């Protein structure tokens, strides 16, 4: 057999095993080469066994803490820089800039700050759900997330559409696993959407162990979803926002974690 052919078969078996096929299945499809394939595929298993283990939970938590601390530090620096930036500019430039912004940008600002609000309807073509992949939310008696509004951006448009949840506050302990809460249903113009933003105001829960109320910070109070999705006129598009609460240290600190794989349409 040509070496290139064997390389292709080996590659196909590696691909299939990665997708969940068994070693035996692959070998039985290529009985003439199984003697040569077997030891190589067993080596692959051994490598995956050694290097494929999940990183330690402590290291992952520590890395997450450092990232959030760096984000917080950056926000503080930006606020200081932005203040000094404003006061150092000549007043005349600031005035002219403000005038230009007021006249030229008024429509754009209007579009971002006050986008058209979509009307809820029980027969609508779009539903927005909240769900909770079980994490550390069971540490809490209740964990309430309040969503002020959700904005959707049609692909290729600078404008946003806004929907205001009919149910503002969802208790994450009540929507775990397959359970969910539908917070809005209504008509959304059919088409491709490139982005979605979820504006969160309060995220807090009461710990079972102490009864203490814990507030969890969401950077900027907004969650950005960048996975595109499509809405059609004739079918119901269900968008699920799947979040959970996870502990990030031994000091009782918690964060809200977005489950990317479970979120979307």
């Amino acid at each position, binding site marked *: 057999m040509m*070496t290139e052919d064997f390389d292709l078969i080996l590659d196909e078996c590696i691909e299939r095993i*990665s997708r969940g096929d068994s070693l035996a299945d692959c070998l039985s499809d290529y009985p003439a080469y199984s003697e040569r394939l077997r030891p190589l595929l067993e*080596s692959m298993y051994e*490598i995956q066994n050694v290097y*494929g283990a999940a990183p330690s939970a402590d290291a992952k938590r520590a890395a997450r803490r450092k*990232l959030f601390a760096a984000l917080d530090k950056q926000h503080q620096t930006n606020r200081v820089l932005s203040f000094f930036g404003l006061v150092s500019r000549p007043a005349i430039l600031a005035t002219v800039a403000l005038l230009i912004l007021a006249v030229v940008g008024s429509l754009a600002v209007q579009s971002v700050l006050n986008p058209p609000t979509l009307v809820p309807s029980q027969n609508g073509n779009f539903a927005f759900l909240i769900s909770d992949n079980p994490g550390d939310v069971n540490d809490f008696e209740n964990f309430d997330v309040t969503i002020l509004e959700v904005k959707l951006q049609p692909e290729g448009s600078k404008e946003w559409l806004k929907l205001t949840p009919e149910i503002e506050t969802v208790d994450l302990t009540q929507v775990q696993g397959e359970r969910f809460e539908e917070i809005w249903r209504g008509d959304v113009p059919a088409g491709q959407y490139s982005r979605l933003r979820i504006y969160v105001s309060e995220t807090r829960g009461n710990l079972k162990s102490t009864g203490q109320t814990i507030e969890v910070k969401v950077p900027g109070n907004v969650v950005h979803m960048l996975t595109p999705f499509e809405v059609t006129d004739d079918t119901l598009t269900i968008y699920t926002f799947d979040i959970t609460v996870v502990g990030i240290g031994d000091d009782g600190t918690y964060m809200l974690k977005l489950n990317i794989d479970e979120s979307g349409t």
Partner: protein
Amino acid sequence: MSKRNRETGRGIEEFEARLVSLYEGYYDKLVRYVYVHIGSREEAEDIAGEVFLKALSALRSGQEQGTPTQWWLFRIAHNLTVDRLRKTGKHEPVPADSVVLLGKDDPVDAAEKTIEYERVIEAMKQLTVEQREVISLRFFWGLTSKEVGGVLGKSDGAVREMQRAALERLRGIMGVQR
């Protein structure tokens, strides 16, 4: 930082949100990628965490524009790994207790697994840097041979050949060590 970011700040918010999402999705993969090259899980975990701090730092300094992607994180991880290997000059020995042991309840089982893990790690060190790159991108980053070829600037046929050669070499080394 892009001009758009400086003017509106909106780009920064989106960048940060995307980075946090990438953290959740790719931290584990980064650890495994680095672990294959460095041979120490603790160091791999350190470097994977550092990748995200470097990414933020690049945003602050204006080195990076646009939306962060897994490829950008991969590039940072790759550079940090190369730097670390350059500094140490060679792979550090892996302490036996740094690997995750399955079946810890049974000391004999745990000891055997430790020996087996060290055997694999030692064998991996015998591969060329490119062979380890193929193994890590293919088995742990989940890329196809064609995609690995794109990263390494090689044809998919060449990648498949390197993959087979790497596995044969590993089998040869591990077979002798048994």
